[in-house]
């Protein structure tokens, strides 16, 4: 039986954690893509565009 203490077990552990680390970015990409699509579905880009087209006076130090 392989245990984490045996060399073979440690190798197996390393391989599975490496596989997990490789999968995390793909999962995160999917999550953020879904967030982006949700934003598009509620027409948030139009609001962003509206904001970005005007000068934000407080942001430039004018109150």
């Amino acid at each position, binding site marked *: 039986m392989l245990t984490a203490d045996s060399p073979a077990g440690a190798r197996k552990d390393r391989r599975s954690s490496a596989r997990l680390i490789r999968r995390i970015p793909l999962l995160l990409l999917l999550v953020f893509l879904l967030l982006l699509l949700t934003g598009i579905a509620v027409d*948030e880009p139009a609001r962003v565009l509206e904001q970005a087209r005007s000068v934000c006076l407080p942001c430039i130090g004018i109150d």
Partner: protein
Amino acid sequence: MERLRFWIQSLWLFLSNGYWAFPVSGTLYQGPLKVLCSPGLNCYSCPAATTFCPIGSLQQLLLGVRLALQSGHAYLGTYVLGCMGLLGTAFGRLICGWACPFGLVQEMLHRIPSPKLAIPGWLGWGKYLVLLLLVVVLPLTVIDDFGLGLPWFCKFLCPAGTLEAGIPMVLLMPDLRSAVGVLYLYKLCLLALVLLWSIASFRPFCRSLCPLGAFYGMFNRISLIRLKFDADNCTKCGACHRICPVDIQVDRSPNSGECIRCLRCCTEACQHDALAVEIAGHVWRPRPAPFDQPAR
């Protein structure tokens, strides 16, 4: 590699600020490209800006979230957060090192000969505090009688906004000059402090105050582009640490949230194949010329 990085940074500076007709039009760019997210910190009120600033837009959406919901619009910042998250997951803080216009400004200033100062490690936590408090919590919770919050980070801290938008817009629009007051002068002083600090320290704003750097930094360990450290090949010579401009112990935490991925440790320092760049699982092992290790 440093020369290539400089040219790519300059290219991003001009891509993010590519509207050079503003002296004629008398106002900022208002075209459709502004629906795209700027990867680096680049104020969208800059007259030449062609894209939106993720931190500025996120704040604007959060501070108006109550009014938006009351009027039946679910503007919760998901589009902006989605853009930021996709960039962060793909590149991590590589964006800071290769595509941030304000980072380039600080790096150029750091080339001015002067006594150089290290930045204490604990100051690195400041940027996470700025992200949490000034970008998220305060705009969401401190509201006026109309239910509207303030863009705390942009209004009270962002020096990039003062440099790229505050100064040019006041020069461009004479009407604004009469409205200049204490807040504007305070922001000018803050900008001057950051610029002077940049001469003495490497990228002080990015390392201690930038909320976008804090956000991307959280992805450094798991982003598609990462550093790969091979302990078996490491001789503990310390060359990677000596060359690192942000003082990371590369052999201990190659994917630290502070790393801006300038890649100098891989391309100029390590002679023993202990460091490599992993791009979506593919390993690229750049190797510096032997004994060609420039000073920091």
